[in-house]
């Protein structure tokens, strides 16, 4: 019981990390980005590539992987999404789905379809006991990085002019433009942030478990589940949602592995029916 909780929370950190960008893009640009999972996977593979191919130290490879993914996100926004998003929302959906396919195919061409993992020698002890639960050190490192980077994201969004501009665009696009904010640039920056954090999630995850291009969709779906639980448009919601989803999916896989997916989706439905705004979602009063 206790170990299920601990391991679930540890996983939850990465789910939250992956979901931040998904939530941000949905809230600010107003699109469900089906290519989000592809960005997570891209970040993981890019990090692995930098570390293995060029011998870059992990911390640098991770930052490179994250920023590279952010850049890819911004390019996707400028070249594709920006051109269609004023049209039918459905078209953007189809488009991001197509982008996911293209990114995945290109990733497969470049890196192959094999699963890759980045093996780290940290010099840390293998782990320690937390009560009766053995906590692997590196899991904890990943969890800490998740929380710290979440804090960085909170500061960027909450305390900087850039973050204010992003939130202003989310709240009211026209008013933001009338205040001198360049909407297109802000969306690109939003996609950059989203991609960077998605890439960071992938960069962390690739040290824990193998990653391959074909895995992108489950990341998109998981991100979706996380923000449904945590609440749309709130970064704190994504964090809490990620942790709750981590425990939920871990518990389901532990206690009833064969029907685990049914359980997680069941909880999603319950949330949609009884608490559509999620645990921490903005109430209707200040919804646009």
């Amino acid at each position, binding site marked *: 019981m206790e170990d299920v909780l601990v391991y679930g929370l540890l996983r939850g950190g990465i789910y939250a990390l992956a979901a931040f960008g998904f939530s941000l893009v949905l809230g600010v640009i107003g699109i469900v980005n089906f290519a989000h999972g592809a960005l997570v996977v891209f970040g993981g593979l890019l990090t692995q590539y930098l570390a293995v191919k060029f011998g870059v130290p992990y911390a640098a490879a991770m930052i490179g992987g994250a920023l590279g993914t952010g850049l890819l996100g911004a390019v996707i926004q400028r070249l594709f999404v920006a051109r269609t998003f004023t049209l039918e929302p459905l078209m953007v959906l189809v488009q991001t789905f197509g982008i996911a396919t293209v990114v995945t195919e290109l990733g497969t061409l470049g890196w192959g379809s094999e699963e890759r993992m980045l093996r780290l020698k940290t010099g840390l002890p293998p782990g320690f006991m937390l009560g009766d639960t053995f906590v692997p050190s590196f899991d904890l490192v990943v969890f800490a990085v998740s929380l710290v980077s979440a804090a960085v994201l909170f500061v960027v969004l909450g305390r900087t*002019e850039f973050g*204010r*501009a992003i*939130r*202003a665009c*989310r*709240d*009211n696009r*026209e*008013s*933001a*433009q*009338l*205040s*001198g*904010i*360049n*909407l297109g640039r802000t969306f690109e920056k939003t996609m950059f942030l989203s991609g960077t954090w998605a890439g960071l999630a992938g960069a962390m995850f690739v040290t824990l478990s193998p990653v391959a291009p074909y895995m992108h969709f489950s990341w998109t779906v998981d991100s979706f589940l996380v923000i449904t639980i945590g609440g749309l*448009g709130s970064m704190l919601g994504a964090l809490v949602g990620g942790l709750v989803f981590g425990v939920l999916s871990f518990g389901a896989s532990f206690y009833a592995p064969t029907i685990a997916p049914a359980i997680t989706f069941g909880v999603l439905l319950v949330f949609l029916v009884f608490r559509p705004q999620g645990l921490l979602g*903005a109430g209707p*009063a*200040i*919804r*646009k």
Partner: protein
Amino acid sequence: MLKVSNFRGGYRKGVAVVDGLQIDLRQSAVTSILGSNGAGKTSFLRGICGLLPWRTGEVELNGERLDRLAPHDIARLGVRMVSEGRGTFPTLTVEENLKVGGYGLSAPVLATRMEREFNRFPRLYERRGQIAGMMSGGEQQMLAIARAMMSDPRVLILDEPSQGLAPIIVDQIFDLIPRLTQEGVQVLLVEQDVGRGLEVSEQAVVIEKGRATLSGPSRELLADPRVRESFLGLS
């Protein structure tokens, strides 16, 4: 300073909601645009700010052409609009709303400007940490005006600032307009209350179905029987 000529624009290609309007703000500190519902007043203002899907004609600010520019560039050059319905950022606090109004300014300048706006609207200072979505209509209107003023605009466009507000608040806002002009800003005002709109302004334009039907000094229009009949309910 602001001069608009031959302005046409609309939402769908070939359908002009604004059809050949001119205004010249150089003659007056406050200019009103009058017209019944759906006449095209808001559309015209949006057109000036670059927010209409299509537009033609010239918009000049101190000789500089604005009509090809994107909305954020127009805003940066000093044309600020307070939209119909205010358009505050509901999840941002009062302070944050003001800071967005001063987007691009350095921190010390932001601080002095914010202090100035808080002096202008002490109510906003009291509520500075509050998120805008939780504020009353009157407070939001003040916030919207203060936000626009943060950038020291050359032209302030107000689209129906009295809409949905209690009479006492409306009085405050109309008292405010002449004071704003003393700071060197020119005001372009759309107002449903035509009487008030004309009283506060020096020049006015009456538009119908996107075209100007009357224009001239507000004082003369106030006396014009057509205006008295159709807008003021007098004969």
